[in-house]
């Protein structure tokens, strides 16, 4: 008897769970209550840019371990550099296209700030208005920053190793990073 009641209960719960979405309409996009932030492994990225960059790194590594000859290295490097640059450009284009279409003011701002197209006030940070010469909050003159990619690319003066944006010392040779203008080595 008890077993039968338990059985009926199980049946109700199971069938109820399956039928519920049909009776109570789900709002599109709400059906998956997943965390807002997800991580994926680099190698599993669908981005052609990342795949091309990974290929470049691998080519570099294969030459270092002696698997690639210099001629093959040069040829492959040229090929995948081109692929990576194409992907980077395509991605940049897609980014601007998507944000323009999205019509979301906040996102548009973020995109512009990220791409470096926005003027920056030394006191108040990035300004929302494009093409302004002075900050609308504090009145200070605004500076036009260089594109992000260029600003980031820094090299060690001593060995030519590429440096991370905040590095104080070269992680290859240990020489202190000087006041050399960005991107001038090589």
């Amino acid at each position, binding site marked *: 008897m008890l077993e039968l009641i338990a059985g009926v209960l199980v049946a109700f719960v199971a069938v109820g769970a399956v039928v519920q979405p049909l009776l109570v309409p789900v709002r599109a996009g709400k059906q998956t209550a997943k965390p807002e932030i997800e991580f994926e492994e*680099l190698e599993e*990225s669908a981005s052609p840019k990342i795949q091309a960059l990974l290929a470049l790194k691998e080519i570099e590594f294969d030459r*270092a371990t*002696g698997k690639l000859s210099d001629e093959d290295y040069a040829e492959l490097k040229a090929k995948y550099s081109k692929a990576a640059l194409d992907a980077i450009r395509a991605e940049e284009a897609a980014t601007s296209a998507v944000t323009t279409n999205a019509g979301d003011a906040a996102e548009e701002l973020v995109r512009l700030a990220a791409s470096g197209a926005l003027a920056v006030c030394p006191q108040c940070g990035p300004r929302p208005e494009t093409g302004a010469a002075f900050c609308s909050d504090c009145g200070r003159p605004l500076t036009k920053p260089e594109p992000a990619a260029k600003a980031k690319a820094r090299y060690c003066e001593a060995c030519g190793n590429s440096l991370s944006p905040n590095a104080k010392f070269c992680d290859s040779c240990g020489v202190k990073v000087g006041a050399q203008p960005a991107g001038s080595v090589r």
Partner: protein
Amino acid sequence: MTTLGQLGLWLALLIGAWGTFVGFYGGYTGRPELIASARRATYALCGVLVVASIGLLVALLKHDFNVAYVANYTSRDLPTVYVLSAFYGGQSGSLLFWAVVLSLFGALAQWLTSRKYDHLLPHVAGVTCAVTLFFVIVTLFAANPFERLPFTPADGSGLNPQLQNPGMVIHPPMLYLGFISITIPFAFGVAALLSRRLDTGWLHAIRKWTIVSWLFLAIGITLGMWWAYVELGWGGYWAWDPVENASFLPWLTMTAFLHSVMIQEKRGMLKKWNMVLITLSFLLSIFGTFITRSGIISSVHSFAQSAVGYYFLGFLIFIILAMAVLLWLRLPMLESDAHLESMVSREASFLFNNLILVGIAFSVLWGTMFPVISEIVRGTQVTVGPPFFNQVNIPLGLLLLALTGIGPLIAWRKASVKNLRRQFAVPVVSGGIAAAILTALGMGNFYAITTVSLAVFVVGTILQEFVRGVGARHRLHGEGYLQAFARLVGRNRRRYGGYVVHLGIVIYFLAFTGQAFRVDLEASLNPGETAEMQSPWGHTYAFTHIGVSQYDELNRLVSAASVEVARDGERMGIMKSEKRQHFICSAPIRPCPRQLRKPSFEPSTEAGIRSDLREDIYIVFAGVVEGTEEAVYRFTLNPMVWWVWFGGFVLVVGGVVTLWPGTTIRTVGEGDTQGGYAAQLLESKSA
């Protein structure tokens, strides 16, 4: 509790059918309420099958011998572990086990898969529900574990004594987990085909599933070898039995898949081939169940012949036809993105690796099925036993071993002759030296010499990979050697984890070679008499028969023969091999009076085993002469057996390294878009 179990099965039938329909239809129309319902169906299906399983487990634990399954596979005195393992020890229980585990995997696939792959999930739900539904149907209509007897026997007939072994408690579920989890990658493949989303997305979604199911298969097969070695008493671990072959086949195709997937991920090639491989793996996992249950090929593992075989045959044919149609319809969308840049490249070496792996799979399948084919074609039955399989597969296996060493030395995309010379010099020379040493030592066995020198070659390449990799990091990034090593492995877990797996495979090969040097001796000894034999390593073993003692255990009568073992005149200790006569009691009285004991199975043998890095001593007590203590023994010296189990361990370690989460990037983040991968965020939103 059988009522509840029975009800659970019927509910599973209902929900499984609904989930199948709504999964495919929801995926086709994209209607969110249907998709949500399909997802819920996978969870509910898992729930009701768990209820059904609990029903069976309770019946087993309560010794409800009115239930035919409980009476057939357990008895009152069976230790509780084996009562629980009887859940999957018999035909119908194992089908229920399959269904419940598959539904669990199906639910996990819905739950754990990243939001990126939402477009695939309804179809995945459809496939997992459909396959689960098939097993539920077979369980309900052809082999129901809840079937009752018209009477209640006093005691069950007990579990086959050979299955009463700790190995048997974990080996089948591991193998089942491997078989069953193949369904998930297959489901994603089908989903990719149905949804026309044939980029590398589905491969990324299943990467971990593939490796996990491959690992389960490997562990299951190795445990099966261990069980066979410890329990079956012939002193070997692999006999090319149809069921062993059936577990080996999907492992081979999955291994091929793991390799060829890398080519598709990196280069966008082999898309059709990967679909074929994953379908093949799934088919072979079902095929394994089919041949054990249909009785089409006789095997030590066979369950009783029943109608179940026809259900499986029908299902197999359906899958083959459906997949053929689906693949044909999507053929134009499966074109390669790139072409091979060179015949001397990692890609090309993977092609050959796939060829050999699938070739071995084919030859094993061919050999397994040949008796049936011969009977159909010629009307003559033939036996295809170990001598055949060894003859056909050893050369292919050695070719594969060689490729294991060659592949990693060749660069992706392209390699030139000069570099190849640099890469191959050390490994080839060390392999050659190994061959020379073995020949000089007078080893006459060609295959053994080849295997060992190839093994040395492969180990050489693996070591060289690590050494040069560390060196390169040291030079490129200026890291210390230890840090370089940690980062090398840490940032390329798949590659270097894969090398560790290769190492495990090499160890297996070496261990298998040991079987060629096995020696046996039969002897009948009076107490106090000694038999001597030479081991392949040159030791002299002396076995002195001490005597036979007889005593009773809970569910068996034991006769234990004891042997004193000495190596090169040095006493090693006493080893024991047992004969066990299992019995059941005709009344629930404990301890069972002598008059009520009924022998339940033929006497079984427990071998005495002493393992060591070089060789195992394996003693089997065959019986006695004329009812006296004069015992008949088989003594076996079995070289290198320990290395099989160790190879399995190394392989699992390597597998875990590849599975360990690596460098990650954030892809979906609402709050922060200023990072370097803002484009990724936007891209996934627009999808």
